[in-house]
């Protein structure tokens, strides 16, 4: 039985308190959040220097570069923590696609109706399966596709001359920049939704609090 199967179903009981987020994950999460906010702010400043004056272009580029390296290093912290612990199950793909998408749409249904009617949330969490299907698919996409593509394209633009061969191989600097900006747009959208979805706990502050304490409080 997979951790996913062991905790799912309407008859399962949500534990009183669950220790969901270990210290390294919490550190990674908030460092990542800070890093992404800095990258988005400086990214806006670099791209729209004629519209914003938060800082000089030169400062924005230097801060963007340093924040980029910090977020890349932080990604490796996240990656090595999960790959070396049994919590990697949180990111395992569900091999039963039919069941996964059934639960996925059940989750959508919950967010669009059940949550307002006070229904019990369809996914009970435990440290090895803390993401509902919507979260899991989103985080898999963000952590394994969007983030690495953003890192690679950002790295290439950090030193164009150094990576010229690679840049030419993928179609030129305009292709690299366009992909980087598309990822930036996705992250802007993701962060806005992520911040809002974080408020959909028992109380608007519940999930935010969890990311500081590591404990998920019992739901009503």
């Amino acid at each position: 039985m997979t951790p996913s199967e062991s905790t799912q179903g309407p008859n399962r009981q949500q534990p009183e308190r669950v220790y969901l987020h270990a210290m390294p994950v919490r550190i990674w999460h908030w460092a990542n959040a800070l890093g992404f906010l800095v990258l988005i702010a400086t990214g806006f400043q670099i791209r729209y220097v004629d519209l914003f004056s938060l800082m000089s272009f030169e400062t924005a580029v230097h801060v963007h570069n340093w924040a980029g390296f910090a977020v890349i290093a932080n990604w490796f912290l996240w990656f090595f923590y999960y790959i070396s612990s049994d919590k990697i199950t949180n990111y395992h793909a569900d091999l039963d696609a039919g069941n996964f998408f059934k639960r996925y749409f059940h989750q959508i249904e919950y967010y669009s109706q059940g949550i307002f009617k006070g229904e019990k949330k369809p996914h009970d969490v435990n440290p090895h399966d803390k993401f509902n299907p919507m979260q899991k698919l989103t985080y898999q996409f963000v952590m394994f596709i969007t983030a690495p593509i953003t890192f690679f394209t950002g790295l290439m633009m950090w030193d164009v001359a150094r990576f010229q061969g690679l840049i030419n191989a993928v179609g030129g600097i305009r292709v690299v920049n366009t992909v980087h900006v598309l990822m930036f747009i996705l992250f802007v959208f993701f962060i806005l939704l992520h911040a809002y979805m974080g408020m959909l706990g028992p109380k608007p502050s519940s999930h935010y609090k969890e990311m500081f304490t590591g404990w998920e409080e019992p739901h009503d």
Partner: protein
Amino acid sequence: MKTGSTFCALLLAIALLGMAPAVSMADHHEEVSNPDLKCLKCHSKNLKKKLEDGEKMSLRIEVEEFETSVHRVIGCTGCHRDVAKGKHPSKQPIASRRAYSLKHNQTCSQCHEAVHDAYKGSVHASMVEHGDVSAPICSDCHSAHAIQPRTVYEPVNGEPCSSCHTDINEAFAQSVHGLARSEGNLLRGDHVKAPSCADCHNAHDISAVTDTQYLVPTCINCHEVAELAHEQWLPNAAMHLKSVGCAACHSPQAELRVDLQLYDRLKQAPVRQNENNGTVQETLAAIDTNGDGLDPIELWKLIRQINDQEPDIDVTLLGRLEVTNSVDAHRLAASTEAVRSCENCHRSDAEPFQNVTVSMSRKDGRKESFKADRRVLNSAMSVDSVGGFYAPGGTRIKLLDWLLVLALLGGLAVPIGHIALGKALRKKQETDKK
């Protein structure tokens, strides 16, 4: 007939000169070797030869000038080898002054073979080859008979280059380099070796600016720490040094533009106008049918057309930020006056990005530009056609801006919609309960 009468006059002049004591000429021109005196007997007079193009060419040699010439030692027949005792080419027709000079261009190569070989690869020789009558040959720079030692060609006044490149020479004279030279190569109290024309462009193997990476390596040759100095503060310094001409920042008053040069990725060289095609202007004008500059679609078509027509070519556009004219390129200021503000170029409304050209190298290697619509930098099609040029701000793709607006609106609309949905559902529940 006129040639015949000129020849008779020449003979008469020689006869009259022959009657004068030769020693008096030798007294005045002791430096001139004795056999040359025989030539000068006639050629110090105002002799003229009628050319086939109707012009009259002076055959007079300024003896004083010839005496100071480094060629004095080889004498007249050193170059005029078709002249010997009893043999004089006076009856041979000469098509034009230019044709005669071109013939003697080959004469120079008999002794100055290496220099001549270097010249053969130059943009000047290429212009000559393509029939440009203003293109300089040996005698245009060195003169025919008053050939000076090399040390003379390092003057502040820019001779001989300045005789054709007058505007450039005037700009250079006011530049940090020109001022240093006129002040005895002193800059800020330090002794420097400020360059003259040949130090940057070479004396004989002068390349077209388009073929020489815009002389950036030449600047770095003397300014050895320039790369390191830029790396200290300039992000992507190596890329900037490659795609921004030195003068774009170091000639702060210069008008700038973005030039998209047609570049062959296979040959790693600028695309040259094909021998079988018309001029660059004709080629580009054929694409720009409405005559308002190349727009994004026309530019995309141009690239496709060249790549389709010529199988051994892989064309892309190499973008560069550069000064609009070559005069400004020589108006270099002291490094303390150089442009250092990134916003100068990275604003979307920055001046250089309002002025966009597409250029191709002419058959003689010189670059020729064609006006392009500035939208070629901001269109989604530019990802393909202008794939090798990107500058934050200036080349921002409008479509991505709209996608970002959509993401922001979507990111706000989803929570607002969700909250509104929640309120509506709760209201319905309450209504249903009642």
